């Protein structure tokens, strides 16, 4: 009796897509692509383009931090820019005071993380709902924005570093090799460092998500109640997720302060917060690569709008956000992915139908059974094959 081929073929459709996006193959593919870009771009691009590319990479790190805590931890933080800004300011203040950049670099990651720990404690251990979470993170960002904005006078300084208020802090010293202040990082070095950091963060998050704590984090998003009943302290896992996200955002802030040698209160602004959310929504919630794609696309778009001065960028960003929430809620990358998967499975099905027809011609006895199996495979909503 001839068994049709479909019983042994891999799952199709969204299932196969999900399996691929969770597999190590996709991580390896992404990192390989990233490494290729990391080595090729500095040879292809001139200095100016490379500096432009660096800010895209830095913002991608910021995007991935929200992609992680929102897409995997289910924490919608409207104030990811608070941690980004804290990272930038911490680095700027510390490097002005200390000279050597090693400790400031570490501080720029630790301070936002510590701040997130306090804030997260108030939110998660107060068992505040998602809505309060959003409003409180928004409020904290506004507090920081107002506070820093009002520190323009010379009396506002930490150590020897004036805070500068709405003027910001100019002339921030760049990173140097640990212990040697004179060996500072150049534009190319900063590009490589940022890109390396992005790939490292991506790999670490992928690795974390494959471990048991990572799975618990995802579970706390899916069903917090059930997780609690299984004996896990969901609050602690959420707090950990939140703090890790803040640390990554702080790293991005530190690199951003390095990129422009300047930081101003706009890093805390609502517009900045909104942008991060738009990157994640547009790129695709629940993926790590999607938000990076969204970040680069939106940044490119805002730069284009900024250069031609006819349409207001807020108008466009707002419209994009509304349209995506209402019409493409999954975001670009997953939508493209399922489109591709649907196409592939349709092609496969056509091929299988041809096979079945051929089989029926060869062996009339097997006909009804083969047709039944094929039908069952079609009926199953997930495209999983019936064995």
């Amino acid at each position: 009796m001839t068994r049709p081929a479909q019983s042994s073929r891999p799952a199709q459709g969204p299932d196969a897509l999900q399996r691929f996006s969770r597999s190590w193959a996709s991580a390896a593919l992404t990192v390989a692509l990233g490494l290729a870009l990391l080595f090729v771009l500095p040879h292809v691009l001139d200095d100016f383009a490379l500096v432009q590319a660096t800010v895209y990479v830095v913002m991608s790190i910021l995007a991935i931090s929200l992609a992680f805590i929102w897409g995997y931890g289910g924490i919608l933080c409207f104030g990811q820019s608070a941690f980004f800004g804290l990272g930038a300011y911490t680095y700027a203040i510390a490097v002005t005071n200390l000279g050597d950049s090693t400790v400031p670099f570490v501080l720029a990651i630790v301070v936002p993380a510590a701040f997130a720990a306090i804030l997260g404690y108030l939110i998660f251990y107060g068992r505040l709902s998602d809505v309060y979470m959003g409003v409180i993170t928004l409020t904290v960002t506004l507090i920081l924005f107002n506070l820093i904005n009002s520190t323009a006078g010379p009396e506002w300084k930490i150590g020897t570093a004036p805070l500068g208020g709405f003027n910001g802090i100019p002339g921030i010293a760049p990173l140097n090799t640990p212990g040697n202040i004179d060996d500072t990082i150049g534009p190319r070095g900063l590009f490589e460092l940022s890109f390396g950091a992005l790939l490292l963060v991506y790999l670490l998050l992928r690795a974390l998500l494959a471990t048991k704590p990572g799975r618990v984090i995802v579970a706390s998003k899916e069903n917090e109640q059930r997780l609690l009943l299984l004996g896990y302290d969901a609050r602690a896992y959420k707090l950990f997720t939140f703090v890790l996200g803040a640390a990554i955002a702080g790293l991005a802030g530190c690199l951003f302060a390095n990129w422009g040698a300047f930081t101003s209160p706009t890093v805390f602004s609502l517009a900045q917060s909104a942008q991060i959310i738009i990157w994640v929504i547009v790129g695709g919630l629940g993926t790590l690569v999607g938000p990076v794609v969204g970040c680069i696309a939106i940044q490119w778009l805002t730069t284009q709008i900024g250069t031609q001065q006819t349409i207001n960028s807020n108008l466009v960003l707002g419209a994009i956000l509304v349209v995506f929430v209402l019409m493409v809620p999954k975001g670009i990358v997953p939508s493209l992915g399922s489109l591709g998967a649907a196409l592939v499975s349709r092609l496969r099905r056509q091929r299988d139908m041809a096979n079945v027809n051929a089989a029926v011609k060869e062996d009339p006895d097997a006909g009804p059974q083969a047709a039944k199996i094929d039908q069952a495979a079609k009926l199953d909503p997930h495209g999983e094959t019936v064995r």
Partner: protein
Amino acid sequence: MDLAAIVLIQILYAISSLIVISSGLAVIFGMMKVINLAHGEFMMLGAYATIEAMRLGINLWVAIFVVAPLTVGLIGIVLERVFIRRLYGRMIDTMLATWGLSLLLIGAVTSIAGNTTAGVSAPLGNFTIGAYSVSSYTLVIIVVGALLALVLRWVLLHTSLGLIARGTMQNPQMADALGINPSLVYSATFAIGAALSGFAGGLLAPLTGVVPTMGGAFIAKAFITVIGGGPAIVVGLVSASTLFGAINQIATFASTPVFGEVALLVGAIIMLRLLPQGITGRFFKGSL
């Protein structure tokens, strides 16, 4: 003595302006559970409506009390029909969409009116208490805030309109079965909330600069007040405004206005840790 009077007036003013700022959101978020992050932009539209109406020669008071609420109420109806209604029950999506809406409105107004500060000077001049001079408009805001809370409570408790609105929010199917069109009630409630926001924007326009991004200054305060107030709409609004307004003004006296705002927001966050259900989740239970 004079100083005490001034401090009292300033504290009452802070409380009252919080009521004014938050009342529209109390209706839209407190009643309808629509997290309207475009609330600040509704206020901004109200302020612009007031200014434009005055440019056309309309009396300031008419502009504030009629033109601003009407304009923003109408805009609210359109936005509810086009966007908000697709999102009922989806809190996070509502938050994101209304944030998009807020950016959209800022962008649209910037494109039309430009990014410059337009202003109306405060009417009615000043009066003096001892050595201190106070703007009479401050008193107007105090009175309007108090009246607003009373009227809102009266409408919700003692008119059939309020009863229908509350009933529909509680159980739309039941209201539908009783011959009330829930979709109409949702539209109307949203429009009233939007109109209140627009009115607040118009009322505060003489005191704050009118710029497209002015909404950002109000949004956090409004949300914190409504959330801090808890489930009872009017009592929560008034009690949270009283608490936060007093904190704000006292801290402002002790330091600077910026630290006053910081004290308000930090105090609110700590209060939410202690009373996650808001003030009326613990006290004044069962009131409205």
